[in-house]
């Protein structure tokens, strides 16, 4: 540089170089973080996408009038009809073992589906019915290309003979993949092909609702009291230290507390979102209190002076002026707390939300499980087919999280628009 500022140029060059270096390090850090995130989300999405598809098998069922008593349609043995339909399709199968593996191509849900259909339309009795049935998890895995079809027959799920049946079904177009609606509309099941995530989803929604309804108002009130009203004395210092410590207590401890107090002393219903929400509320409270206090402290004192100066009471000052300005910050704290609560598994295990529950909970006092617990349960299952369910449930959990944060951000923007 040739200008009149040259005397600081050497040091200036060093300072600019430092700035450039720092910017690059920042960029690299962000790239690393984002790529980790992409790898994680990408692999989960890749694994979980399979769960969105369900394999169906078409069978021609002869609704033999001799097998279905027209007076008691619901009591007929539909499992037998399905088996007969399979044997009719493959008359060459005669050996007991082969029959068994043939039956294993469709899910045991097929009998229920047929039952429902015939009960709804009794006019079908005596006719032939072409109907699509849910395939068993093994067939489903095979169709999705997750199983070996070559190599040592003894180490495979399907023998060459079975593969032959499946191919013949395929050739006549009797096997198809459909969108797996059931995954989003049913509860858990022992059979992977029937297991759905709705039960856990509703359980999580109820649990978080209870958690939010308890922890947000209590947390905000506690923060407002401590920050705006409490005298600065030794007791309040003690309370403050304890709140900060509580925020660091491992979550499983809160679970044990819930077990000991809410279940054993108060006798609240085990495995219920009510107790789950209460335990998570205990866990979330310190986070919300700390964030809310920080938000209150960030409100300029001049606002308080302005309100008090024209004769507002302390309460009016806080609720008309200070709290509205702190609300966005308080909501941010609540988001962080709720997001943590959403992913929490350990305390829920303690209060029994880990049970195998098929029914969708209808209220906060019915037994339920939660998404993270469902993920834990499925990940623990031996069936190959639960692997993709696990990943799909993780995706549901992440989507839930994103939706929750979206709502919170919208709320926050709504309230911070008061200029």
């Amino acid at each position, binding site marked *: 540089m040739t200008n009149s500022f040259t005397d600081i140029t050497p040091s200036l060059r060093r300072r600019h170089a430092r700035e450039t270096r720092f910017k690059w390090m920042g960029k690299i850090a962000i790239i690393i973080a984002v790529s980790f995130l992409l790898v994680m989300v990408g692999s989960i999405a890749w694994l979980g996408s399979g769960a969105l598809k369900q394999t169906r098998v078409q069978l021609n069922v002869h609704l033999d009038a001799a097998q279905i008593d027209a007076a008691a349609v619901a009591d007929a043995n539909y499992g037998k009809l399905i088996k007969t339909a399979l044997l009719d399709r493959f008359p060459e199968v005669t050996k007991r073992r082969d029959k068994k593996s043939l039956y294993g191509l469709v899910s045991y849900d097929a009998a229920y589906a047929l039952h429902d259909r015939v009960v709804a339309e009794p006019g079908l009795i005596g006719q032939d019915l072409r109907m699509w049935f849910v395939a068993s998890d093994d067939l489903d895995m095979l169709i999705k290309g997750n199983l070996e079809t070559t190599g040592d027959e003894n180490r495979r799920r399907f023998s060459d003979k079975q593969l032959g049946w499946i191919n013949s079904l395929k050739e006549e177009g009797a096997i198809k993949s459909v969108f797996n609606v059931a995954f989003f509309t049913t509860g858990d099941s022992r059979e992977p092909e029937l297991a759905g995530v709705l039960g856990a989803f509703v359980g999580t929604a109820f649990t978080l609702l209870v958690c939010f309804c308890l922890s947000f108002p209590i947390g905000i009130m506690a923060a407002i009291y401590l920050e705006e009203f409490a005298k600065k004395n030794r007791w309040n210092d003690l309370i403050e230290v304890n709140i900060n410590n509580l925020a660091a207590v491992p979550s499983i401890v809160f679970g044990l507390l819930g077990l000991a107090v809410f279940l054993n002393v108060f006798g609240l219903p085990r495995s219920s979102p009510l107790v789950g929400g209460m335990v998570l509320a205990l866990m979330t409270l310190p986070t919300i209190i700390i964030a809310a206090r920080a938000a209150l402290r960030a409100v300029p004192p001049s606002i308080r002076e302005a309100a*008090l100066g*024209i*004769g*507002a*009471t302390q309460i009016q000052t806080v609720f008309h002026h200070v709290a509205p*300005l702190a609300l966005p910050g308080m909501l941010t704290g609540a988001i962080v707390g709720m997001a943590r609560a959403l992913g929490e598994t350990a305390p829920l295990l303690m209060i029994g939300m880990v049970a195998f529950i098929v029914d969708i909970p209808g209220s906060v006092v019915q037994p339920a499980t939660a998404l993270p617990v469902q993920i834990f349960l499925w990940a623990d299952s031996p069936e190959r087919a639960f692997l993709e369910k696990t990943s799909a449930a993780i995706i549901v959990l992440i989507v839930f999280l994103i939706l929750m944060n979206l709502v919170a951000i919208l709320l926050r923007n709504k309230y911070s628009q008061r200029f």
Partner: protein
Amino acid sequence: MDTKGKIQVSAKDVNVFYGDKQALQNITLDVKSNKVTSFIGPSGCGKTTFLKCINRMNDLIDICRVEGNILVAGQDIYDKSVDMVALRAHVGMVFQKPNPFPKSIFENVAYGMKIHNMTSSKSELADRVEDSLRRAALWDEVKDRLDQPGTGLSGGQQQRLCIARTIAVQPKVILMDEPASALDPIATAKIEELIHELKQNFTIIIVTHSMQQAARVSQQTAFFHLGNLVEFGKTTDIFTNPQDERTQNYITGRIG
């Protein structure tokens, strides 16, 4: 009840401490109704501290302790029976930095009247808001945008909005802490003009670090120095014929 020339604010032996540190020593002075009294003195001499004693804003500061008596309209304001809310409705305050609420201009002025239930109908409230803004010489500038945020106004307008907000609740005394220190000369002139108008109806105490301003707006002047009230009297006397050497040094620019 008070009439012109009566004592509105009366301080007797006021000592103020911040923790162990004494900020004011034995302040005794009487402020007359419907006059402008200015507090002058170098930075850190305790002007703001004394002003905040008069509407008990000091109570917000945990470590602050006030001794002695301060009477407003004859009532000892540090008496247990005194309600701070009533006191602050009687003694309004305008702060050094304009601090409008982050709400609409209308809401800024209406807020005090709303919380004190001073109006019985919406139209009365609107009339009183207009009246207050007119008296604060701000009406013409904001009448078309009453629903806009008060924080969007210029500094001088914001300060006049704060004055409108204060006079809307009809106090008897208005405390002003360097109300023009953050403003440009034109805005300052407007505020000073306003103070002239307001003294018809209010007792005004103004802290200022500008001696010219004190000379222009006030009838009484108190000179503070290092926590002491050095001299208090007619503004003309203080500026033309100061009794104390420190006052003399200050107004001639040798201290401060």
